[in-house]
């Protein structure tokens, strides 16, 4: 019996790799196992190697593993590309159709199973992925019955015959593998899980659900990897709640349309990745100077330009903080788990309205697209706060020619906000510097007053923000403080016990608020550590530079990875060790 293992399925894009992984992991999730997935794919629809690596565990896990226990291959390329990950005694299950071969010197065990042939005999070769699921189930020692509900969910709309054929394919795959492998394979039998049903979702699902729960009712957006799932979810759900999604002509339209809707009183968001965010920069400045709330999601992927559009990277951080020309108050949030993505999406709208600023939620590809088991989301925690938005409709009458003071200079910098349609609320909004009524003004005194007003709005945020740095502090005096952002949290957490075992005292901080920078929260952690190292998926150490800029620290080390793949726990472990 084992408590966790790693399983990967690979083949040509478009031949059902995605659905094989989906069915396999959904069924396990329903048994109470914790799943964590990472998809390797390319920017094309048919052809090209793709794979889906899934970690299965009886306890919470938020990282891909260093090695691989089971590789399901639909072609030889899958074996050639991935065999090096296999642990000693690892198993390759390949379709007999292509005559699978292990590369020389491989310590893995190979089993050829006629996926395609069995599926064809049962009715259609399309079910070859079900045969593969059955073979895998045999290795894991799980009952094929657990797939019934998942198969029904996917295929019942095509009729009961389709469901039973697919179940037959799973059973036949299992029986075949059992016979074939008898006594000749290591122990991959999973210990029983707790049987609790938890959510199984990608970060983008959580962001979209969070936006909907947080009151977003309008989303203009332009499709892009790895952000499109957010608009796709909301176009399915928003009509039930009165809202909608518009697929715009480009990201500039998406961002400005969202500004228009927010200005008119509807919580509205857009989502994109680096290329789209680059196009939105001027509009983000408009949101800033007009103090119009705005929420944007940036699902980071490999840049620059088109870069590595389907790969992991965290290189937009500087662009999100500094990208807009001129100076505006802006918030950049960075959830580090799927759960946080849900709560942060709600909070982003609250912050955007309370401070009347643009809020950018940055994620990374691994967080946005990695499908994982998520603990129940707590509706009790959902809180909608709209700040100084006045909806009383009892505003005092205005003198002729005088506008409502939409930009009144106040102590906290935030002014009362009214929306079009409101009686006695007339005012002007412009991206030109303006006076308290929103009328253009170039007077130096007014410029300073309005600039200061805007820039002081966010002063209290770093203190009010829930856990701007997520602290995993076990030591008052640590040898090392490891800092990360977004999806690296689980991987760092996995490397930590290995370092501790080797005698190092290690604390870990995951930054959740990138701007305004949580200087104080980090400083107390830095002061407790002899060395500080930042783990990030970029080439220039952007987070490390932010720390140097904002904190008192002698030296900040960097562990960087920018080859398109997420960190492995062993990489963080080894590179941390080398610092000593």
């Amino acid at each position, binding site marked *: 019996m084992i408590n966790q293992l790693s399983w990967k399925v690979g083949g040509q894009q478009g031949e059902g790799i995605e659905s094989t992984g989906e069915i396999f992991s959904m069924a396990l*999730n329903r048994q109470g196992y914790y799943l964590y997935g990472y998809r390797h794919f390319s920017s094309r629809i048919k052809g090209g190697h793709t794979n889906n690596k899934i970690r299965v565990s009886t306890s919470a896990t938020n990282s891909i593993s260093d090695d691989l226990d089971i590789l399901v291959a639909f072609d030889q390329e899958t074996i050639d590309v991935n065999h090096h990950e296999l642990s000693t005694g690892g198993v390759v299950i390949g379709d007999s159709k292509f005559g699978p071969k292990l590369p020389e010197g491989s310590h893995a065990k190979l089993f050829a199973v006629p996926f395609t042939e069995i599926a064809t005999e049962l009715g259609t070769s399309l079910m070859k992925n079900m045969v593969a699921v059955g073979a895998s189930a045999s290795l894991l020692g799980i009952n094929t019955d657990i797939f019934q509900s998942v198969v029904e969910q996917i295929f019942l709309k095509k009729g009961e015959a389709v469901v039973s054929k697919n179940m037959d394919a799973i059973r036949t795959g299992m029986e075949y593998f059992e016979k074939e492998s008898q006594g000749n394979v290591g122990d991959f039998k999973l210990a029983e899980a707790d049987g609790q049903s*938890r*959510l*199984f979702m990608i970060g983008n699902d959580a962001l979209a*659900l969070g936006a*909907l*729960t947080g*009151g977003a*009712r*309008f989303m*203009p957006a332009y499709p892009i990897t790895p952000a499109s799932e957010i608009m796709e979810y909301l176009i399915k*759900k928003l*009509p*039930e709640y*009165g809202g*909608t999604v*518009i697929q*715009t*002509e*480009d990201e*500039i*339209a*998406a961002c*400005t*349309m969202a*500004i*228009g*809707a*927010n*200005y*008119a*009183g*509807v919580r*509205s968001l857009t989502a994109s990745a680096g290329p789209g965010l680059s196009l939105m920069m*001027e*509009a983000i*400045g*408009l949101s800033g100077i*007009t103090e119009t709330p705005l929420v944007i999601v940036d699902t980071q992927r490999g840049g620059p330009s088109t870069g590595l559009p389907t790969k992991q990277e965290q290189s937009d951080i500087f662009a999100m903080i500094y990208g807009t020309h001129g100076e505006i108050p802006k918030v950049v949030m960075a959830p580090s788990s799927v759960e946080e993505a849900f709560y942060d999406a709600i909070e982003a709208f609250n912050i955007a309205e309370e401070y009347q600023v643009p809020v950018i939620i940055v994620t990374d590809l691994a967080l946005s697209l990695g499908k994982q088991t998520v603990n*129940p*989301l707590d*509706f009790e925690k959902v809180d*909608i706060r709209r700040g100084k938005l006045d909806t009383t409709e009892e505003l005092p009458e205005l003198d*002729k*020619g005088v*506008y409502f003071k939409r930009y009144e200079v106040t102590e906290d910098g935030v002014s009362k906000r009214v*929306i*079009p*349609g*409101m*009686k*006695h609320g*007339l*005012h*002007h*909004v*412009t*991206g030109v510097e303006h006076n308290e009524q929103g*009328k*253009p003004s170039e007077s130096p005194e007014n410029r300073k007053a309005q600039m200061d007003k805007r820039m002081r709005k966010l002063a209290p945020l770093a203190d009010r923000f829930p856990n701007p740095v997520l602290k995993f502090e076990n030591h008052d005096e640590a040898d090392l403080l490891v800092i990360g952002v977004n999806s690296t949290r689980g991987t760092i957490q996995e490397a930590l016990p290995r370092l501790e075992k080797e005698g190092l005292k290690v604390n870990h901080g995951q930054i959740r608020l990138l701007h305004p920078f949580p200087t104080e929260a980090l400083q107390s952690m830095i002061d407790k550590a002899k060395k500080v190292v930042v783990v990030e998926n970029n080439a220039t150490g952007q987070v490390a530079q932010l720390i140097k800029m904002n904190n008192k620290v002698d030296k900040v080390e960097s562990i960087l990875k920018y080859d398109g793949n997420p960190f492995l726990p062993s990489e963080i472990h080894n590179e941390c060790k080398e610092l000593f």
Partner: protein
Amino acid sequence: MATFKDFRNNVKPNWCPGCGDFSIQAAIQRAAANVGVIPEELAVVSGIGCSGRISGYINSYGLHGIHGRSLPIAQGVKMANRELTVIASGGDGDGFAIGMGHTIHAIRRNIDVTYIVMDNQIYGLTKGQTSPRSEMGFKTKSTPAGSIESSLSVMEMALTAGGSFVAQSFSSDLKELTSLIEQGINHKGFSLINVFSPCVTFNKVNTYDWFKENLTSLSTIEDYDPHNRMQAMNTLMEHDGLVTGLIYQNKEKPSYESLVTGFKDEALSSQDISLNQEQFDKLAAEFM
């Protein structure tokens, strides 16, 4: 009932004396009063350029955004609150150069926004460069040897893009212009009204006199039917686009908002945005 005076504020426009934009401002104010909206129910969204300042010169809700983006902003406003009358406005550079992508998609999308282009065939605020509406050979600071790009036929473009309300006018003809803006506001869908608005400072070719000489009113064309798209296209081609009046209207084309599943007539901005536990549990259960 509001009168056109209710749409005046005390802001003095920064346009040059004699600029065509003054009349367009007056026409919008008159049309708004004539269709029966009050200042609080009107949102004017404008772009950047001389003409872009217009949202600040009308006593209504107004948003002066960024260059070329008045249309997506205006469409966002309308989607948020269908009860508002939304006018977008800007110059020919704003709508047909930097913002052309938005213009053509706003036309085909057909959200109920009235778009008034103040077309002076030149860049005024940057002191005299060529525009997509400038004629071939037009000499400007950026085309000292004369423009070597052809002028864009925007009315024909609007017809091919599926425009449901396409009109053109001349700033001097306040009566016709006011009437077209009223019709545009009353039209249930996107309306494009291109208005020739002479730039007295930088455009010495397309002057008031030039337009008077070269424009043909559609009212003078016998049997002109603004519901006949083919006739509209032919007439535009015959007159090199230099016609005024309602060129084409398709009242049958439904507005975008009216086709959105579940979209209510009530303003989205006044609807409750909170979910209840039951709704949330149902949404979450889909991920199990």
